[in-house]
């Protein structure tokens, strides 16, 4: 799909979720941009079918790091940027297919599809958890530099 369109729809969807989750109006546009960038990374990486988990992981990690940066610029908690931003990459299609396979009675395939869905969701969750690990040293270095200059 056209990357520009993908960016646009991901950004619009996340911005709408941000409004729904009552994010401050000042933060809605940045949330859209962050979500768009995160989704572009996902879209580019998932072209290769074998790298699906990697696509979920890297795009979620990028989203989490961007949210941390935005949190420092706009002085809001990072979760505020992250939660709406993550929604376009939630593995909704896989979840649906798992359920459909269960309904059809093909239990073995459903379990295998379910495991792959869980792995994708787990990759997103792990990336979010690991972002603290990535960001923490960076923030410390930034603070030290700031302290020296200031």
């Amino acid at each position, binding site marked *: 799909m056209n990357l520009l369109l993908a960016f646009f729809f991901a950004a619009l969807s996340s911005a709408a979720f941000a409004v729904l989750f009552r*994010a401050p109006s000042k933060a809605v546009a940045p949330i859209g941009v962050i979500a768009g960038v995160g989704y572009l990374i996902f879209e580019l990486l998932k072209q290769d079918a074998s790298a699906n988990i990697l696509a979920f992981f890297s795009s979620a990690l990028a989203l989490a790091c961007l949210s941390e940066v935005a949190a420092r610029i706009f002085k809001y908690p990072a979760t*505020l940027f992250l939660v709406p931003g993550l929604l376009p990459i939630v593995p909704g299609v896989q979840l649906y297919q798992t359920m459909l396979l269960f309904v059809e009675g093909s239990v073995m395939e459903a379990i295998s599809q379910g495991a792959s869905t869980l792995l994708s969701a787990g990759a997103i969750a792990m990336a979010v958890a690991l972002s603290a690990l990535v960001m923490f040293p960076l923030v410390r270095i930034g603070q030290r530099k700031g302290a020296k200059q200031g």
Partner: protein
Amino acid sequence: MPSSQQLLSLIQHATRIMLESGGETYRVEDVANRFSAALPGAHVECVVMPTGVFCTLNLPDQPPQTLIFRVKSRGINLEAIAEVNQVSRSFVKGSITACEALCALEAIGAKPPMPLWASTLAVGLASACITPLIGGGAADFILCLLIAFTMHLCMQPIRTAIPLGFLHNMIGGAMAALMTLAGVHLLHMGSVMTIIVGAIMPLLPGLASINALRDALRGDLVSGVARGLEVALIASCIATGVGSMLALWRALGGGFSI
């Protein structure tokens, strides 16, 4: 300097708003601890769970005072979390007094919910914009928009009229599936999968699943497990709702393409 009564009531207001708005456990405990820094010598022990708060205020030469309250509703209000955070920071810095902080917290808690038209519009756009991302066309977009509008408008009165807890998600999923099947069948356009996935997107427990993992990894095991259960329950309720309608449709002889 605030009295211990004032301090406890500040903590109660702040933690309640944060928990009801979907704040992480550590953030809620942080806020309680931050408030206690305003009284010299005060020490707060705070245990926060998704369903309630236990908090004891220890002051030198005074018996400890304990606050316990139950939290029943769990929604998402990102602005309230950010605002309570801000109030607690400026209170500790000393730029506002205890009374002003209490008034500010009460104002945050008393904010009216979003108008129905605004939330309906947001739900519709959020759902419909997912469909092009998973390969949908213009027909999917428009159908999903209409279905999300209808779903939200129908769910709102049901939510307030009948306290069903997690079962609302089952009704939501069933409604989404039924309307999609009917719409696609009658209009002969759009794809069932794309529209259903888009329409159930607002029901999915995004914030709860992130909070569950964050809490668990930080060592707030009780909150982590409780929120994990919440995620699992919501997801299975949605799947049951959608799945039952698909199965029913199939049993009644209606076919659909994936």
